[in-house]
């Protein structure tokens, strides 16, 4: 059979009719729409909470790891040029975020401030010549990868400049290693958790939309019998489920936003040990447009893909000889 080629005008008319029919169907199937959107709202909200929780947790981990640094204690005999060369070399190491120098006098001052309430110690230190060494504080970019820094400062020519073991040794090294392992594990677990739940959410939404389309399979069959082509039948379902996605995503953002607004004063005042809960609200406000856009796109995509797959089986020409 010969197909008449479609003109642009014809295609636009068809697209317009598909969008219009999708919108009308959305309004005329309110209960089905509400059921599907409610399911999408719940799953998208939980996913959003998980993402925010993950970011909050990540922030706390970052705060902990930011406190990790390596102190290199210098001999009193180290000259100024030796010191600046050493610092210059350290800065060249890729994993080094920042390097700061603490002179003997600064170290003494810091010591006095730290022990301001302990007069015995203050008296003892004032009776001797300043015994505290000058030191270099190295902050790594990635605490999981500080061995390169450690290897460099432990080279024999560098070791000669040092009065003592670095702070990254012994018990302290063990503690740092434990923290880094734990934070890496927790970060990975959180990311895997978000991914798994996102997949489960997509499957739940897909199933809900499949049920909604199963309820209307007779309509698809009638449209087929009347001679409608695949796109003309499927299009309005895709438009309708995309609308579910948009509305559920926006409602989810409004819900989460309202919750943060209502509980902001409680969040500001409370903390769970190291966990900085108020960061969750800050993260949401800071990334509001990104979250809104991302969530809406995800809602649209899940809706569209689900209805395309769900309508497929009812659109097949199954006749056999």
């Amino acid at each position, binding site marked *: *059979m010969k*197909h008449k080629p*479609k003109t642009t005008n*014809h295609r636009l*008319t*068809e697209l317009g*009719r598909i969008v219009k029919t999708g919108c*009308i*169907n959305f309004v*005329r*199937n309110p209960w089905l729409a509400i059921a599907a959107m409610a399911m999408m709202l719940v799953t998208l909200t939980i996913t959003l909470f998980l993402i925010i929780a993950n970011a909050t947790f990540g922030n706390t981990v970052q705060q902990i790891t930011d406190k990790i640094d390596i102190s290199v204690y210098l001999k009193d005999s180290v000259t100024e040029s030796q010191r600046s060369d050493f610092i210059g070399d350290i800065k060249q190491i890729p994993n080094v975020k920042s390097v700061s120098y603490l002179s003997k006098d600064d170290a003494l001052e810091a010591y006095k401030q730290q022990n301001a309430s302990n007069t015995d110690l203050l008296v003892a230190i004032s009776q001797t010549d300043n015994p505290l060494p000058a030191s270099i504080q190295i902050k790594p970019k990635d605490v999981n990868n500080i061995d390169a820094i450690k290897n460099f400062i432990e080279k024999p020519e560098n070791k000669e400049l040092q009065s003592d073991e670095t702070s990254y040794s012994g018990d302290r090294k063990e503690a740092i290693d434990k923290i880094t392992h734990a934070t890496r594990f927790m970060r990975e677990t959180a990311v895997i958790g978000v991914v798994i739940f996102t997949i489960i959410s997509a499957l739940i939404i897909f199933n809900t939309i499949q049920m909604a389309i199963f309820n209307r399979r007779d*309509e698809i069959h*009638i*449209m*087929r*019998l*009347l*001679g*409608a*082509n695949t796109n*003309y039948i499927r299009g309005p379902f895709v438009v309708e489920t995309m609308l579910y996605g948009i509305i559920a995503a926006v409602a989810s953002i409004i819900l989460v936003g309202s919750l943060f607004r209502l509980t902001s004063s409680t969040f500001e005042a409370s903390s769970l040990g190291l966990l900085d809960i108020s960061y969750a609200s800050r993260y949401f406000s800071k990334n509001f447009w990104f979250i809104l856009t991302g969530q809406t796109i995800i809602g649209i995509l899940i809706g569209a893909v689900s209805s395309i797959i769900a309508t497929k089986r009812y659109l097949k*020409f199954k*006749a*056999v*000889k």
Partner: protein
Amino acid sequence: MILLDRVTKIYNKDAAPALERVSLHVEPKEFVIIVGASGAGKSTLFKLLTREEKPTSGKIIVGGIDYETLKDKDIPLLRRKIGTVFQDFKLLPNKTVFENIAYALEIAGTSKREIDHTIPKVLDIVGLKGKEKNMPTELSGGERQRVAIARAIVRQPKILIADEPTGNLDPKHAWDIISVLEKINRFGTTVLLTTHNQDIVNKLKRRVITIKDGKVASDQATSGYKSI
């Protein structure tokens, strides 16, 4: 216009064929009634003509289209050329009377202006003026079937096939439907009507093809209903 040549349809190899070597030829503008008891094969014949089913063997040609060479992607085009009326109306539940009829034109890309111009005329033919905005659930069985007929004829098809269109209707409404089909036939459309309503067959005085146990038992130019 419609040609079936030794058409056989077997659904289940262990059971008798639904249709066995059925041959028939329907001329343009003819009004043909196909009669037969339940399970005789009338609905299978209908499904073969709309290409819901494929024949196990034999040849079907409708309006010059040979079903053997018809590709899946061309089935929508074939169905747009044939008007179909079903016993259970098959109206789209979420669309108004107007939208149900308009759907048949929209899928063929007809302009809105033409749709708005054509539908009132068709509604007039089937006697449903003023019901445009009603939903199918707000109509009686007879009215629903008239919407289905309006939808089938709105594209002015050369062929209209109606599968037991009066099956769910009381005698008065059944005759309304038959009158509409006769009117359409007078306009030049070939009508193929399946029924087991003896009264309709006897009063219409048209060509009657009787199907019994999947075979053509008789084919008479103007006949009364024979006990089958």
